[in-house]
């Protein structure tokens, strides 16, 4: 790549509000790989909560803001399969009958990536310099797996980290039960589902759990901590960028 | 008729305007040509491989297969099967297999016809068999009472090697070729093993309502 790729970072509301260190880890990974990273001011949320609640009008209004904010970049990258999936798979559908926004949505969607798949599939990152000692279990979020084609890429990156021993989570394709507002609206079902996931994670003997989506991570971490587990939960970007000074999710 | 008219009317209204001639032509063409869709590679193998594939597939479903050289050897194979499973030496035959050399087994009580409630063993002929899935094709007809495949607890099927086709599609072609003007039989049963159920705690049990045992006597013709 002769020209440095211009990346618009879609921070995501969960990263912005709950764990900014993930955003900084993403910036570091992208800049280390040669990108020029911008963080458009006008972004807030991808609109998925409204979209999934059936509030199409609000979802479109929010999405329109996102599209305009991210129009001019070579790539749009999000440290989240869920938000990237919203932009990539659902924005074109939201605007499919709109003569102006339809093509714009498709254009932005075509350039939108989840972070780890962007690093591997586009930037071809092969030698991360970070180190992290211990067994790490990687959880595939449903949107990463089924909307964004992310599975091998984060594992390939983790394999580059000195000291990481990767563990497979049994029944790895099963949902963690987060589902956005589902976790509160139908909290008892969500708790049942995350209970199974937490048990599967614990069974690996891993000391650390990572994933590419904060929603899943907060959900599983919440359950693990309630159960008194010592497993440390982080976003995969933190390990990959060698930025693990901040406490893990749910710890101080 | 009102139900029919109302339903078809609603369907047409929901589908909306279309090129009616083209639609009718498309339907007529598909029905006439009945084109094959994708048939798995596995079904397109040579004769010897087909036969072995059929045998191993159906054996995997808890059915058993005995191989004999000629039709005249069938009754002896049936008698041996009954003895092996401590079954009384009696069988109800479909007319299609009644002409086999049952005289060679004088101790075997064989009667021909539809099964009676207490019959333990039914012997019928297959129309064809399908290697791809290890499946027997049994059709109803003058010589094949369909209930003989279902009521007795033990079902023996007489099959000639040459009847084994590769795929379900091959079997349909064979049926079309054999029928002439007769069209479909009342019943075409595709049987891939003995009767089973997993309705109690997902544990597999044989002999739910149909035969508990399925045995194929394969004539290497």
């Amino acid at each position: 790549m002769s020209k440095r790729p211009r990346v618009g970072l879609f921070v995501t509301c969960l990263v912005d509000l709950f764990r900014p260190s993930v955003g900084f880890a993403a910036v570091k990974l992208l800049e280390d790989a040669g990108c020029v990273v911008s963080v458009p001011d006008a972004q807030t949320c991808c609109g998925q909560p409204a979209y999934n609640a059936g509030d199409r009008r609000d979802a479109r209004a929010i999405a329109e803001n996102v599209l305009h904010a991210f129009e001019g970049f070579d790539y749009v990258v999000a440290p989240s399969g869920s938000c990237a999936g919203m932009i990539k798979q659902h924005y074109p559908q939201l605007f499919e009958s709109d003569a102006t926004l339809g093509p714009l949505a498709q254009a932005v969607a075509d350039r939108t990536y989840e972070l780890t798949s962007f690093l591997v599939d586009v930037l071809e990152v092969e030698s991360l310099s970070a180190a992290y000692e211990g067994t790490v279990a990687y959880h595939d979020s449903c949107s990463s797996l089924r909307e964004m084609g992310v599975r091998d890429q984060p594992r390939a990156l983790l394999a580059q980290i000195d000291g990481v021993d990767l563990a497979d989570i049994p029944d790895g394709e099963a949902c963690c039960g987060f589902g956005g507002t589902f976790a509160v609206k139908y909290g008892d079902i969500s708790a049942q589902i995350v209970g199974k996931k937490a048990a599967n994670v614990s069974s690996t003997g891993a000391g650390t759990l990572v994933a590419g989506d904060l929603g899943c991570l907060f959900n599983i971490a919440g359950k693990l901590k309630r159960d008194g587990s010592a497993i440390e939960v982080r976003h995969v970007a933190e390990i990959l960028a060698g930025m693990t000074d901040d406490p893990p999710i749910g710890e101080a | 008729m009102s139900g029919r008219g109302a339903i078809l009317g609603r369907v047409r209204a929901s589908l909306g305007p279309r090129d009616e001639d083209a639609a009718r032509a498309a339907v007529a063409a598909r029905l006439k040509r009945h084109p094959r869709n994708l048939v798995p590679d596995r079904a397109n193998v040579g004769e010897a491989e087909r036969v072995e594939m059929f045998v191993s597939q159906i054996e995997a479903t808890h059915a058993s297969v005995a191989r004999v050289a000629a039709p005249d050897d069938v009754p002896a194979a049936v008698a041996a099967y009954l003895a092996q499973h401590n079954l009384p030496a009696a069988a109800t035959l479909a007319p299609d297999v009644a002409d086999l050399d049952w005289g060679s087994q004088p101790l075997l009580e064989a009667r021909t016809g539809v099964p009676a409630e207490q019959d333990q063993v039914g012997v019928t002929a297959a129309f064809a068999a399908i290697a791809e899935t290890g499946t027997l094709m049994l059709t109803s007809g003058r010589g094949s009472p369909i209930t003989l495949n279902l009521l007795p607890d033990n079902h023996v099927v007489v099959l000639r090697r040459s009847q084994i086709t590769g795929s379900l599609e091959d079997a349909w072609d064979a049926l079309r070729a054999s029928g002439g003007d007769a069209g479909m039989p009342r019943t075409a049963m595709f049987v891939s093993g003995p009767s089973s159920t997993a309705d109690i705690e997902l544990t597999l049990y044989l002999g739910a309502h149909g035969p508990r045992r399925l045995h194929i006597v394969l004539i290497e013709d």
Partner: protein
Amino acid sequence: MQPTSRQFHENVDKALHDADLQTALFRVDKNFTSRRTAAVTAMPEFEALRDDAVRIKDHTLAHLDLYLEKFEENVTANGGQVHWASTPEDARRIILELCQAAGARTVTKGKSMIAEEVALNPFLEANGITPVETDLGEYIIQLADEPPSHIIGPAIHKTKEQVSDLFVAHHEKYGKTKRLTEGVDLVAEAREVLRPRYLEADVGITGANFLIAETGTSVIVTNEGNGDLTQQLPRTHIVIASLEKVVPTLEDASTILRVLARSATGQQMSVYTTFSTGPRRPDDPDGPDSYHVVLVDNGRSKLLGTEFQDILRCIRCGACFNHCPVYASIGGHAYGWVYSGPMGAVLTPTMIGIEEAHHLPSATPFCGRCEAVCPMRIPLPKMMRHWREQAFDKKLDTARQRLAVKAWAWVAQRPALYRRLTGLAVRYLAWRGRPLGRMRDLPFAAGWTDARDLPAPQGQTFAAQWARRRGAKG
């Protein structure tokens, strides 16, 4: 069947605390998923077959009227008769009249979801005709007077002990007084008890997995052979099937059969796949004297051309149930009506209304596994979202939930305000999370915090820190 979908929360609570049900659901989860995976892995052409199956169904739906006409023509040509039922009432009435014309006292039944949908059994009973379920799972729930909890294993929610109890209570009249504990003995007793019922039935009623236009044929798929005994022994065979079961040709049915059993149970083919065309022929030694097909609409014609059309591709394999984390947690009865699992979440509102059934498409994390395993590539989450749009317009959610969604959306469209408000909120939540970095409870979030801690935010937003960093760089 009277729906209880409105009481979804209560149903769910009951299901989550039912230890026997949870054990049964664990077994379903373990069994079916691994079997499907194995079957799919063993067939290299599986994805291409899914594509073929979708094309066949979409083509058929686009020409549904013409294929239904052809189907009727061919049934008639082979000596059978087709009846058209717009509503459940029509279907029940037609079948009752056929049974009465046959002088039926008892009728045997193969497993049929459409028969459940139109509530056939209670109607027959009310009119002095006894329906006898022959599929072992259906027989078990008939004894228990319960609806099915899974479309291919209706009694999977029952333990062996519960089955033993049912048999000892209901088989006494057949002279069976011993309480059996082994599965093999239970199956044998069911076989023994049902055999005379098969033989004495005047009418046999089956569903149909497919109706074939080319030949006027109905197809059933079973492992037990109960459907075959049901449709061959009595003098009258009645098939009840919904409109969208029709496919054009024998070849088309063969293609869809390839993905059906593999998706359902991981088998290549069910033990018995039977194609029935008309009554017995003049030379046939056995078989029914008359053959009737009752086609049921019940709203399906109205789904064509709408955003819900694709649910008409469903072949009732159950794969979506088997891979659904919600179904795995609550089982089928909690959904409150005939159809549960992901396909039930889409289909049920079309039949009993979104007001009654709005929880079904709402109670899902949208994990997407249903769509991933559906042999007919039905976009189930998308259609559930369409239902949520209707529910939102009709204000079926609670006022608080609605307010939360709209408030968030309103603020999210105003970045400057968003920054200020979220900056304050995360400072507060970070403080609440001290000293451990997580909260055990939080107002309005009991759904989360009853069973989980809520990790605290780091305390400042990314936006604020990024702005400072940019400011520092000048």
